[in-house]
Every structure is written in structure tokens, then in C-alpha cells.
């Protein structure tokens, strides 16, 4: 493995259930993602793409195989070390934005930085700068309920970047958005991550945003079936 690789997955399998009720979500995935690459994982529902994203994001354990993030075998880490690794190395963007309803946009974004140890003022300042960058500089005090779907997803992007993680994982970030908003949000994510050389993996089946990917990996029935599209980054 070269140090240029952000992600290296080998022989990753995931089996849910046991006995006669086993379900093979992943059947031996091998994939490499270069540093700074904007990769999209595509495939039909139930194909295993979100399961792979969860394993790469260290929120789900693989049944077998290994995953290296920036050269470190995270599948060999003790479970107790994973929360801190997620906090410092991975930014998450969820399908349903998953903002904390009781916190304002600024506080949601600042939360990660504050948990990383930044003071309230500094975290707030960084959050405001990020919200300004995603076009929500005038909405910093709004609660999630006071924002549109597209605006919430922009807050979620700002939160994912607030801890300055080298890796950003996004699960269907455009699923709840209209075409215009979906495209805008993905373009924004790509732009912000590219500025800092962040590696991004986006799970999606939204063909309207495929063209933004550096590379696409297609998964079906728990296996990588073929690269659909490759673009120069």
C-alpha cells in the first residue's frame, strides 16, 4: 500500500444474522481510494454500498477482511479507540442531515470542533466561517427546524468539515433534495474538499451528480462489479 492511499479495503465481507437467516451484505470487497479523490459508490438499493461506507467509517465492524485508513489498519483497532478516530479523522454527512434539533446552525457545526478541544469562541468562529462558506452566513442562529432541506444539508456539510478531517463520508446526501439543490450541495462538497485535499466517498444512486465524481465504483449484491466512470481529478 502506498502512503498516497487514503483507503485500502481488502476482502471485506459483512454477514448480518446467523444460522439459516444469514444475509451476506458484502462478499469480498477490494477497493483503493487515493488521497484527495472524490469517489462515488453507486448501486441499487440493498447492494451493500452503505454497509461498505459504514465499515470504512468505523461505525460497523467487518465480518472479515481489512480496511486501512491512511496506512493504519482500523479493523485491528480496539473498539474503544474508534470514537476518537472518527472524531479526528472522519467527517460524516448523512442522508437525513441528522443535525441536533436543539442546537443552532452555528452550535451544530461548532460541536465537533468543541469536542476536539477547541474553546467555545474559537469553535464558534470556525463554525461561522464555514457556514459563511456554504452560503448560510446569515442563518447561523437558526435552529434546524427553521432551515430548508437544502440549507440543513449545507449545515451538515459544514459540520462534517468543522473538525478538518482528511476523510469525508457522505451517505446519499442528495436523497432528500430536489435536483437543483442536490447538484448544488454536491458541487459545494466537492469544492470545499478539493481546496484542502480531502478524500471524499459519496454513496449515491442519484445519476444527476455522477459527473462530479473523480471515479465511480459500482456495487451489486455485495460485490464491485465494474467501474462506471473515471474522470481525471
Amino acid at each position: 500500500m502506498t502512503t498516497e492511499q487514503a483507503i485500502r479495503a481488502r476482502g471485506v465481507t459483512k454477514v448480518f444474522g446467523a444460522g439459516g437467516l444469514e444475509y451476506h451484505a458484502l462478499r469480498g470487497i477490494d477497493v483503493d481510494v487515493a488521497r484527495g479523490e472524490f469517489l462515488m459508490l453507486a448501486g441499487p438499493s440493498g447492494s451493500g454500498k452503505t454497509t461498505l461506507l459504514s465499515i470504512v467509517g468505523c461505525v460497523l465492524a467487518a465480518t472479515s477482511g481489512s480496511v486501512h485508513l491512511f496506512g493504519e489498519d482500523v479493523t485491528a483497532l480496539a473498539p474503544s479507540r474508534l470514537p476518537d478516530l472518527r472524531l479526528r479523522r472522519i467527517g460524516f454527512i448523512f442522508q437525513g442531515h441528522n443535525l441536533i434539533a436543539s442546537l443552532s446552525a452555528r452550535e451544530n457545526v461548532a460541536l465537533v470542533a468543541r469536542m476536539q478541544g477547541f474553546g467555545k469562541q474559537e469553535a464558534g468562529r470556525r463554525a461561522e466561517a464555514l457556514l459563511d462558506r456554504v452560503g448560510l452566513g446569515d442563518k447561523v442562529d437558526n435552529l434546524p427546524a427553521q432551515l430548508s432541506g437544502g440549507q440543513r444539508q449545507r449545515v451538515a456539510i459544514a459540520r462534517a468539515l468543522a473538525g478538518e478531517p482528511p476523510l469525508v463520508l457522505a451517505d446519499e446526501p442528495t436523497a432528500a433534495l430536489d435536483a437543483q439543490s442536490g447538484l448544488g450541495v454536491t458541487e459545494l462538497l466537492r469544492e470545499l474538499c478539493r481546496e484542502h485535499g480531502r478524500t471524499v466517498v459519496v454513496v449515491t444512486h442519484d445519476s444527476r451528480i455522477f459527473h462530479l465524481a473523480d471515479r465511480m465504483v459500482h456495487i451489486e449484491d455485495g460485490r464491485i462489479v465494474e467501474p462506471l466512470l473515471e474522470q481525471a481529478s
Partner: protein
Amino acid sequence: MTASPALPRLARWRVLAELGLRMMLHDKAKLVGTLMGVIFAVVLGVQQLSILFGLLQKNTMFIDNSAADLWIVPPGTTTLQTGGLMSDGVLARARSTEGVALAEPLLFQTATLKKPSGGTEPVTLVGTSLPARLGGPWNFVAGGPEVLEQPDTVVFEDSEREKYGGLDVGSVRELAGQRVRVGGFTWGLLPFGPAYAFTELGHARDLTGVPADKMSFVLVKVRPGQDVDAVKARLAERIPELTVVTRSEYSRSVVITLLKEQLGASFATSTSFGLIIGFVIVALSMFSSVLDNLREFGTLKAIGCTNLDLALLLFCQAALYALAGSLIGLGLVGQMAEGIRGPKLVPIVPPVLLAIVPALMLVVCVVASTLALSRIRKLEPGMVFR
């Protein structure tokens, strides 16, 4: 790649404590519901305890206000009530015991007061020896201790005046078949039995037919500088057929007896009931709050919170519920105690309860939050991707 060094825990926990508070305040219905549970538990529990303490005080106030250091009582005596009589030989032995400054007889008998309209009312007639007046009346609202020096005079309980047929100072009534004059009134001297009525010892003996050499108790004051326990030991040695107790021992014995035989079980049940109901409400409210916000907790886990972090968040919420609920509840109990306060019952909220109640409610709320915590512990951070 390696994870950065762990953060100072306190700074991180402060963030989570703030988040816990914000989540609490955001869901106002749950906030009110949970607080109501704590307040209910505090009000029911403390109100029951304050009434219990008030009732116990009514039954120990005579001993506590007797001005005697030691009591000589019949063997096996655990409460203050009319019982067997002792002879004046006891008195003589007590008075001649080293360290005794004063030993005075006290008569404690039930008598019947005849009402002008017909019918009778019982009173606990207390005969006190003058001029020492150990075990004499206190808390006067009319007249004073000196009225006992007037012949045929009795001091009655002010709150029972109407019940006794409209007594006034100077009224003449028939007590134990003899005419007596009302010399004054005390307030609030009502034990579980009939109210206390005080008169001079000789007069009390005349009214109740007790011989002049008989008495219910002997009350002792020790000489200044003398050790009460040492005098007690000497008296016990000289009067082995009776029991010598200090004032505080006697008072404690009354409390223990009442708790064991009459009050303890009933008040413990109602107080526990309040705590259990409060516990259930808090547990269900916090659990329901976690279920409602399961996705938020999952998100927090996904972005790097540990189970310990989230346990702290719940602990802070539980502590705030306990503190706020206790303060509101204690305030309400204080108001209720003032409302209930009367001659027959003065609810007592000992200052120590102000510290114990929030601490107890903290334990209740923290234990109640474990149900919610168990749900969070089982929560997989990967659920946020589903």
C-alpha cells in the same frame, strides 16, 4: 495514522453537559413531565416526613420542655402516658443522691371535664410541684406560670376552648367532679391523647384521688458542673426498682416506640410510594426522551462520542432534573406546611432535609436514567446510515 492524544476530559464533558441542558430545554413537554415526577416525589415524600416529624414532636414536646435533666420512670416505660404510681420514698432517695440539685414529683393522670351543655371531654391532667414547676406548662397565650399558685386553678389548651364549651380566663368548670377556675391557656400542647391541662401538684392529687405520697414520675435537675450520666448512674444504683433516663433518652425512646408501633410503617409506605412514583415518572420520561432522540444520540456516537460521554450527558440531565425538581418541591412543601400549621399539628421540615432531599433525588434520577442509558449503550452508531 494515529489518533491524536485524548482531550482533557473535563473540557469535553463540559460540552456534553451543555448539550444535555440544551436537549432538555428543547423538549419542553418532556421537561415539564419529568420535573413533575421529581416534584411529586419531593412534595409527597417531604410532606409526609414533615407531618411525621410534627406528630413526633407533639409526643416528645412535654419531655423536651420539662426542664428536667433526668426522669425517674416506672420500669419498661417507653412513652409518656399515665401509668403506675411510685411512692415518695423514691423522692427522698433521689433528693439525697449526690449531684442532685432538685428532685420533684410529677402527677400525670386522665381526668374528665364536664361541659356546660352536657357531655364530657377527657384531659391529661398534669400536676406540677411548685415553685420548681418541673414539667409545668409553657407556651402560654393567656395567663402565665404564676397562675398555678392560685387555688383551684387549671391552665387549659387554647385550641380546645370551644370543644370544652367556650372556656375563658376566669371561667369555672367541673373537672373530675370538682369546680376549678380557668387560669390561662397554652397553645399547641396536644399529644396523640387528650390535651394537657396543668395544675398544682396537690390540687391534681385532690382532683384525681391520688394519695399525697404518690406520684407518676420524679423529675431531677443535677447540680451545675455535675455530669448528668454520672448522676444518672448513682440514682439507678440507689433506686434499682425504677428506671432512670436522661431527657434525651426518654424523648428518643418515645420516638422509637411510636415509629415501631404506630407511625413508622404508614409514613414509610407513603414516603416510599412518593419516591417510587417519582422514580417511575423520571425513568419513563428520560427513556422516552432518548427514544425520541435516538437518531441524535446515534449521530453523536458516529461523530465520536463514547458511551461514557453520553452517560455523562444523561447524568447532567438527571442532576438538573433532581436539583430543579427538589427546589420547586421543597418550596411547595414550605408553603403547604405553613398552610397546614395549627395547634394540633406543626409540620416540621428539618434544615437537614434541604440537603438530603436534593441528594436523594439525585440518586433517584441517576438510577432512573440508567434505563435510558442502557438503550444508548445498545445503540450502534451505524444506525445513522440506515
